[in-house]
């Protein structure tokens, strides 16, 4: 245990995700030795992010205005919607530079163990966006685990009667990987999702 405020700082840092007691201690002592100006900037950035950043009223992505940059961008296709669990998943899909549609962030996945049901996710908002018929295709990009699959199945059932084409991201082999190192579940899925090679 350290004296008062130092221990307080270590405790606070230790509550952050991915930071254990040892790392918390290291960060705390780094901050103690750092330039006051640097520390002030860090504190400022942390406060600002809480004050300025909000969640996009349309898609639920992080935003500095009422709507996020993607929702404001007129070049993005309004007919295609990609459903993800978290804002950080948008960043992952964006890195592909393949997708030109818009997003909808659910804010998690259905998991009764954690007390998360459909009402705790932004599903009502999603149905609202689908109501006017602009969106013609919905791509469900929830995580490929049990909870993500459950959420995808739930959404597909809910949306099927609305006449929107619903698809689920394929799961399969990583590009550049070796077949021999793939685990049997992934390989099994890849077999199920195999596609015909068309010779032109």
């Amino acid at each position, binding site marked *: 245990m350290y004296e008062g405020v130092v221990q307080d700082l270590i405790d606070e840092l230790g509550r952050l995700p991915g930071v254990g007691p040892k790392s918390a201690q290291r960060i705390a002592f780094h901050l103690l030795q750092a330039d006051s100006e640097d520390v002030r900037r860090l504190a400022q950035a942390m406060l600002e992010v809480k004050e300025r950043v909000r969640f996009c009223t349309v898609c639920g992505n992080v935003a500095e205005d009422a709507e996020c940059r993607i929702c404001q961008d007129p070049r993005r296709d309004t007919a295609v919607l990609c459903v993800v669990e978290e804002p950080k998943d948008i960043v992952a899909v964006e890195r592909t530079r393949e997708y030109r549609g818009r997003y909808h962030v659910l804010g998690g996945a259905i*998991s009764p163990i954690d*007390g998360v049901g459909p*009402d705790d996710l932004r599903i009502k908002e999603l149905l609202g966006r689908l109501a006017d018929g602009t969106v013609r295709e919905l791509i469900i990009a929830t995580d490929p685990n049990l909870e993500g699959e459950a959420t995808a199945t739930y959404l597909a*059932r809910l949306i099927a009667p609305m006449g929107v084409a619903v698809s689920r991201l394929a799961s399969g082999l990583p590009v550049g990987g070796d077949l021999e190192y793939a685990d049997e579940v992934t390989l099994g899925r890849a077999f199920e999702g195999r596609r015909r090679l068309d010779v032109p």
Partner: protein
Amino acid sequence: MHVASLALTDFRNYQQAELTLAPGVTTFVGANGQGKTNLVEAVGYLSGFDSHRVATDAPLVRHGAQRAVIRAGLVRDARRTSIEIEINPSRANRVQLGGHPVRPRELAGTVRTVLFAPEDLALVKGDPSDRRRFLDTLLVARAPKYAGVKADFERVVRQRNALLKSAGGRRGRPDAGGTSDPLQTLMVWDEQLIDLGSALLAGRIHLLDQLNPLLGKTYDAVADASAEVSAGYRWSLGEDVDLTVDRTVLAGALRAALERRRREELERAVTLVGPHRDDVLLSLAGVPAKGYASHGESWSLALALRLASYQLLRDDGTSGGEPILVLDDVFAELDVERRSRLAALVGDAEQVLVTAAVAADVPATLTGARVRVERGTIVDA
């Protein structure tokens, strides 16, 4: 496959132990409480990450130590490889295969052991969960993909139970916030339960189909009697459905059973349908073994089950290699006749590890190499 070397650090009562093993029979001899079983328990741990004696990992770590390490050199078809497992009760185990870190799941099926111990009497006399564990362990040893199926299935059951609980709580007060019907989400978990449950059911039923003919033979050989032995699958799906390995039929039966028992599930807030509620009915001459078989018959049946699994694994023609056979404190429980018959049955196995408090209990035909164990050290190997 056989274990060529075994090194333990802070495992059970061993602070540090190393030993070289040869193919064929090795007998570990020592008084009670010296650590014979701990050695073979470590070998058993390599195959399924569980102990035949305890349900959690904490007792495996020597009192006062943080973690235990098992290192084993293995030989299969003259090829050597090594496995290192660091058992850490508060965190995930760390596993290395041939010096490279791998995920514990990837090790499933690499080492195959069949272990028979006094605890196995529970296969006959114990709860359904003991028999389910026997089936699933064998299933994973034969086809490692079932490790994932089983883990996912168990998680779906936990999710579904959590949902049933919250749905039960909400039914009393209909306006307790939220617009969606919990039953709507229940259907989603039903689908997963049906999908994974039918896969697990098909695996188990197929396994029993293959095990049954072997079981008859091994029982006759152990007991030197010709009794009608069978292991039948007992499921929670109702009597009107015939056992099959057809997944579509199984899925349909699961679906129907879920619908039939929905109300009851909601009332009791627990998943009542699925392979996690099933059992294996062992019978001798048409009579259930549990409750009816004598102590000696129960022993023979438990031993016959293990020997049948051994033969099944040995003859399945996959790349898994011949399993390592472990007989832990078994001979003391058997009469002289059964001892020598057992010895004759396992004499040709690639590797047999035997533990005994009294060396004379082990038939002379089986003693092989001998290792003395005293107070957590290997005295003479």
